[in-house]
């Protein structure tokens, strides 16, 4: 088994990280297996990153190629930033799972296959003419094929389940085997199963039996073959309380924390859309933290209700994905005009239009920064990883409430679904930023709803406040009174005030994420490309190249020192999962010759791809695009043509 070394060559000696991919039919419970394996990995003290990759269909017919559901985890005793390029181990619960995922497996990687599921019918559904487990076509891999189905049925026999029900425990059997492979305790899983099936103890017992049987199978002597136990030492990390967290959870918690730091109740207006719905779901369970969730009739109503709530004195938040964000455009303009706090979360997915709802992309940056009628500036910030999303969400709340402005928070389908271990932060480490409402005027002062403070923010007055009745709206308004005012000088002035308020938002100076402050090449990223860029840059630094990584959180306004920082490098390479959107910003703002490296396949960058592109760049052939083909992970070849 291999590590993620710079050369990405298989090397069975070094065990500092591994990539495992569980793949099966949507009905096989692979996401559950993956999730529980993740938890066990976290408990073992390894660093990790995951990539759940589910089908676009709700429940595709069993055994089909487009019904394959996979879960990939990269874990190790060193820092892990990506879910890994190519798996070392592929667990394939049926022929379709094998077919779709095989191309991504590392040469010499291990395949664990449930031969019991390689029936004639399943092979046909996967468009296999021969059984790949038998025709020698897998020769360049290590293959471990045996009848998991049968073994599971046997294991749960004592509990009197029918075959169909019994097979439901296949995933637990597999998980048991995986636990053995990585020398993990079973007790947490036992406890979890008992809790999960509290009302159906026999199901709990059957699953426990399957888990134990899989584990025991690993230990039996017959396995002199490719299966070896791996001891992965824990990654030394700061002491503290830890948990795993997905991006969607992290955004949700960050928003709640942000509202609490602003000392405001939070109002969340949402409308279901993949992959943004998870935030609505999480927040709907957090009502006790002074959160109101409102599933509106559409995205427009969701943002309008959120603005209404902000108007009434709560922290309005709304969230969606590309097409839904598009619908919110007009209302965002109103938010900018009435200058009320609002956080808009965009969990980006593949576009345009309905696009690829379950795939990831970074192609809504243009929309976030530029996509409104009129001169309508709005701060935009981006999360780079699941854990980072927590801080970014708090930052969004801070900017929104301190500057009285809508703020766009960009995340994406990859971050939303991926998990990583997270050191539970100490809430008291965050500086509160209590929102202030204007409740009374200093004696003799006139009430001016658009008079600004030193940050450029206008006062926030809650309806219900005596003596401060006023009217707001989307028509241009007078600089101080806020009354309708179309006069030329006033519009000129207001356009500038709105621009400057946003332009002057205090944003921390940009730091170099990895590498030196000057050099031959700086790789500039934003959002979820953080992990692969960091690893790829690191590989070149280790090879002695003068490469650095700059990862930008504040997309608009940009950090003040950014232009200067970038000018310290000979080349600027900008990998993006779009056709080069952030590149436009930097070229416009700093007139630097930033070169795009684009990938628009709906899949995250692989470290190796970036490594190669950096190499090219160091040889003066910067930019280009990743020549994606269907050999990449995951690979639903032949599907839906």
């Amino acid at each position: 088994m291999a590590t993620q070394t710079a050369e990405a060559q298989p090397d069975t000696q070094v065990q500092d990280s591994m990539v495992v991919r569980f793949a099966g039919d949507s009905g096989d419970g692979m996401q559950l297996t993956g999730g529980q394996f993740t938890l066990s990995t976290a408990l073992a003290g390894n660093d990790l990153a995951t990539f759940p990759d589910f089908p676009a269909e709700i429940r595709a017919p069993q055994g089909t190629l487009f019904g394959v559901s996979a879960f990939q985890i990269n874990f190790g005793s060193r820092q892990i930033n990506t879910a890994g390029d190519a798996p070392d181990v592929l667990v394939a619960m049926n022929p379709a799972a094998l077919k779709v995922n095989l191309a991504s497996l590392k040469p010499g990687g291990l395949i664990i296959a449930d031969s019991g599921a390689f029936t004639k019918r399943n092979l046909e559904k996967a468009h296999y003419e021969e059984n790949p487990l038998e025709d020698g076509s897998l020769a360049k891999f290590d293959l471990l094929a045996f009848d998991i189905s049968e073994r599971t049925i046997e294991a749960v026999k004592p509990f009197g389940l029918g075959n169909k029900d019994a097979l439901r425990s296949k995933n637990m059997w597999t998980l048991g085997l995986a636990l053995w492979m990585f020398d993990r305790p079973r007790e947490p899983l036992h406890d979890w199963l008992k809790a999960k099936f509290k009302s159906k103890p026999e199901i709990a017992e059957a699953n426990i039996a399957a888990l134990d049987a899989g584990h025991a199978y690993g230990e039996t002597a017959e396995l002199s073959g490719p299966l070896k136990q791996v001891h992965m030492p824990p990654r030394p990390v700061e002491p503290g309380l830890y948990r795993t967290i997905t991006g969607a959870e992290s955004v949700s918690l960050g928003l709640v924390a942000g509202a609490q730091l602003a000392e405001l109740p939070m109002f969340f207006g949402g409308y279901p859309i993949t992959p943004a719905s998870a935030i609505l779901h999480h927040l709907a369970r957090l009502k006790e933290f002074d959160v109101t969730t409102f599933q509106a009739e559409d995205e427009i109503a969701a943002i309008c209700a959120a603005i209404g709530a902000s108007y009434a004195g709560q922290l309005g938040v709304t969230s969606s994905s590309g097409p839904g964000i598009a619908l919110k455009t007009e209302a965002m303009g109103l938010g900018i005009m009435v200058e009320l706090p609002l956080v808009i979360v965009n969990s980006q997915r593949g576009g345009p239009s309905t696009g690829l709802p379950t795939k990831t992309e970074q192609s809504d940056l243009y929309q976030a920064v530029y996509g409104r009628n009129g001169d309508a500036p709005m701060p935009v910030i981006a999360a780079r990883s699941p854990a980072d999303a927590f801080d970014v969400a708090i930052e969004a709340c801070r900017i929104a409430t301190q500057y009285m402005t809508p703020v766009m928070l960009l995340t994406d389908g990859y971050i939303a679904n991926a998990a990583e271990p997270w050191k539970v932060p100490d809430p008291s480490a965050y500086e509160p930023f209590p929102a202030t409402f204007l409740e009374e005027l200093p004696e003799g002062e006139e009430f001016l709803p658009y008079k600004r403070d030193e940050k450029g923010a206008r006062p926030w007055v809650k309806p219900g406040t005596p003596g401060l009745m006023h009217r707001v709206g989307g028509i241009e308004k007078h600089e101080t009174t806020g009354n309708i005012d179309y006069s030329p000088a006033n519009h000129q002035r207001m356009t500038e005030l709105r621009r400057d308020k946003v332009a002057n938002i205090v944003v921390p100076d940009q730091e170099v994420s990895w590498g030196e402050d000057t050099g031959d090449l700086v790789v500039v990223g934003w959002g979820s490309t953080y992990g692969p860029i960091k690893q790829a840059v690191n590989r070149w630094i280790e090879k002695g190249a003068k490469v650095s990584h700059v990862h930008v959180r504040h997309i608009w306004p940009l950090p003040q020192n950014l232009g200067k920082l970038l000018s310290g490098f000979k080349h600027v390479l900008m990998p993006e999962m779009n056709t080069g959107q952030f590149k436009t910003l930097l070229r416009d703002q700093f007139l630097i010759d930033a070169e795009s490296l684009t990938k628009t396949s709906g899949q995250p960058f692989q470290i190796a791809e970036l490594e190669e592109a950096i190499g090219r760049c160091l040889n003066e052939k910067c930019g280009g695009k990743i020549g994606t083909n269907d050999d990449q992970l995951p690979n639903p070849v032949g599907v839906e043509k």
Partner: protein
Amino acid sequence: MNEMSKIETTLKDWETDQEVRWCPGCGDYAILKAVQRTLPQLGADPKNTVFVSGIGCSSRFPYYMESYGFHTIHGRAPAFATGIKLANPDLDVWLVTGDGDGLSIGGNHMMHVLRRNVNMQIMLFNNEIYGLTKGQYSPTSREHTRTPSTPLGSVDHPANPCAFALGSGARFVGRGIDVSKNLPDVLTAAHAHQGAAFIEIFQNCIVYNKDVFDDFAKPKGAEQQQLWLSHGEPMLFGSEKTGGVKGLKLNTQAFAFEVVDVADGDWQAAGVQVHDATNRMLAHMLVELPFGEFPMPLGVIYDDPAPTYEAAVIAEKERASAGKDTSIARLLAKGQTWTVSGTASDPV
């Protein structure tokens, strides 16, 4: 509105310092005055009152009310108002919209605010035209209406605002006329109703759709053409002076109303129907009554309260919070965690 907070105000207290910008003679002026006259009677408190509107001539309303006001975007006022009510249910929310704002671009939000039954008063100023954009036909314009966008006459079947409201699940449906002295009564009933109260107000756009309601709204003949409804009262209209007292009688065979003459005030003898504002079927029949053959039903057509949305949302939030530790620390540490001390890690 919080009953406790009733205060004394006069019409003047509800006027702002902004010059009113409607065309001279526009029906909006009369509605503005009617509202400014009604609010003191309700004991409404300017600081707890919020006027929310979309875009249109009618939607300029908030600028002229000395209360809190939000002039939002075209068609979306119900969504803003919903957010406001959920964030602060103590506020007394009045929504002002037009036939274009509320039924063309905003029909969906209108439906959902009615369905959810968010407690507010919704005044739809129906002038059967797009006033602000200079006179295009609207979804309530009658067939063959000639406007800049329909120079040869419109061909759509018009929408019926009250029928739409009922179909959307409204629990209060009322109707008034801009200049009618009864308008404050309808507003008062709407305000008393807990839940979304839908009020269609016929409003004269004297510039683009002048006197289009004259067939029933002009004072001359009004008695014969207007049927003012009152719960528990017979459905009578007309007077001896104007051509006789008449009433509506239900033909149970045909499932339809018919007009009957009432002699000597004996409406029972004539079989005149007594209005029951809680009867949905009566409401359906009344709002779909073909005008011409019948008078125009006005007043409180339907009023049958149901629990409000914001009350249910808040109750649920309270249930969810009861006795819970709501510290941020607990929030963050939810789910399965483990502690790392030195380099070892133990599940907790």
